[in-house]
């Protein structure tokens, strides 16, 4: 029952879980400091949801330990549940109940009295722009409204730790923007948020630190910018239209740095990673001009988290992802 104020708000050590012959978690470690957002990133089937289910006391791990808001998940699941709000694909709203009834029920089950539960349900309905639909069965809600109701349900008890399992999967851009705004407001109030996502952009936008999960293990962790840095500096891309000039261009670009340039044969687009962006750009263009090789579409860019994902897991982020919005 002790509740230490210091230390990470979310912490997992060596979580393992097996479903039959399938290894869902092969030793997951993660940590989030209070008041920060931890993004858990990975394709479908990587183990994100299993991790969430273990952390939220819904699934017993085969091995490892975890703490949420200072409570040991295995020894004190009751304590975890008191300080936890869960929302996402596996924590459903009741379609037959109205929005108001859903929130009232959750509030009562968190231990609020009748009147307090009614008041809290009203506040949340107003806060999430659901007042008009409050007394309609939630089964009649749009996807975005249902997500908002689900998110409101997670916040009923103003929990210090909130877990959002793929909160924007299947939402339209407006719904996604609404959810992002809600997450930022939560963090501004000091809440610790763990969110899983298949969308790199989402982790990039919201997360203070990111854990990349693949085949049940953490393949990378750090801040979004650290992960990008691990892919190695900036990326210089340029297109050489004439086929005959490409071998010469490849030689010139190879001399720029440690990495071989990648060539997309169809378009003639070269991409090379460099640690000294602007200088390399100038030098490369100079050399190519001297060799009389015409180039176009020159781009110097920071690596995206997509690039990071490809470099870290050996497969594009979209591989295995189905049904997502992008």
């Amino acid at each position, binding site marked *: 029952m002790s509740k230490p104020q210091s230390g990470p708000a979310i912490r997992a050590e060596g979580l393992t879980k097996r479903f039959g012959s399938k290894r869902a978690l092969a030793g997951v470690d993660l940590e989030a400091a209070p008041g920060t957002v931890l993004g858990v990133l990975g394709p479908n089937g990587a183990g994100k949801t299993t991790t969430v289910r273990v952390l939220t*006391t819904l699934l017993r791990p085969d091995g490892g330990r975890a703490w949420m808001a200072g409570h040991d998940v295995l020894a004190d699941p009751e304590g975890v*549940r008191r300080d936890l709000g869960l929302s996402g694909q596996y*924590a459903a*709203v009741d379609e037959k109940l109205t929005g108001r009834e859903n929130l009232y*029920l*959750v509030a009562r089950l968190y231990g609020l009295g009748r009147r307090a539960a009614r008041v809290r349900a009203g506040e949340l309905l107003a806060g999430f722009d659901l007042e008009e639909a409050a007394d309609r069965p939630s089964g009649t809600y749009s996807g975005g409204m249902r997500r908002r109701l689900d998110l409101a349900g997670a916040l009923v008890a103003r929990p210090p730790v909130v877990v959002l399992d793929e909160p924007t999967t299947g939402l339209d851009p407006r719904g996604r923007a609404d959810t992002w705004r809600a997450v930022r407001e939560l963090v501004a109030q000091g809440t610790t948020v763990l969110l899983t996502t298949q969308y790199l952009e989402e982790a990039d936008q919201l997360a203070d630190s990111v854990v990349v999960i693949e085949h049940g293990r953490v393949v990378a962790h750090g801040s979004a910018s650290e992960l990008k840095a691990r892919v190695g500096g900036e990326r210089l891309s340029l297109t050489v239209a004439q086929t005959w000039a490409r071998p010469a261009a490849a030689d010139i670009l190879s001399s720029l740095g440690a990495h071989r340039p990648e060539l997309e044969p169809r378009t003639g687009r070269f991409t090379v990673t460099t640690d000294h962006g602007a200088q390399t750009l100038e030098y490369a263009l100079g050399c190519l001009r001297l060799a009389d090789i015409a180039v176009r579409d020159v781009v110097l860019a920071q690596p995206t988290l997509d690039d990071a994902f490809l470099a870290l897991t050996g497969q594009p982020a979209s591989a295995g992802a189905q049904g997502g919005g992008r």
Partner: protein
Amino acid sequence: MIAVRRLGRDSSLIAWRNLLNLRRTPGSVIAALVQPVMFVLLLAYVFGGSLGGAGYRTFLMGGIFAQAVTFNAAFTALGLAGDMDKGIVDRFRSLPMPAMAVLLGRTLSDLTMSAVTLAVTSLCGLLVGWRIAGSPADALLAYALILLFAFAMSWVGAAIGLLARSVEVAQSAGLIWLFPVTFVSSAFVSTQTMPGPLRTVAEWNPVSATATAVRQLFANPPPGGVPAGDAWPVVHALPYAVFCACLITGAFMLLALGRFRRITLG
């Protein structure tokens, strides 16, 4: 003491939610009410004529009550499996409430459903000529016994629903056992004409004991063509029926809770 009060409050909240769900799915409620009415009419007029006429129709009702509440166990199985399937159970389990509240809430709402079923079935019985001939106190005791048995059967349904873990499996597994359990009994016929071992099974079947005890309390004697026999569970139907209901409730409550805890933590 606080734990008991919380369990009571949380289970009644869950039961409230379940009943709201039922009220907003009138189709399934009507199906549950049509089933015993159909059995009353079928047995009273298709089989009843050759089994004793008006006397059989009076006798029949004790069996119908026991059967109707047994069939409601399928509701529990289906309801729990559906809630797991839709993620409702996960939502509940992520909240700070006892695991037992989710199960007790379900069995309590199904007990309410059984009470409604009993009322409708009783009315239907009155229409085909059934009467309560015993004292009002005995009649109340009879209804209490049926509800106790309904509660026990609901826990069997809860265990099946949790073991099934999918709506489809729960649907077939929740229904299939009801037929042998309610028909290999003295609910509708005499056990005396059944072959040896089957007869013993039927005599000791809790459904038989409940039906027999209810008939005794309503003072609905078996007609000449449907002898009750004099086996121990027939003679001691009421205490044996109460014992069975308590035993089944306890055993399947532990089974369901154990299963539920294995799925989630604590």
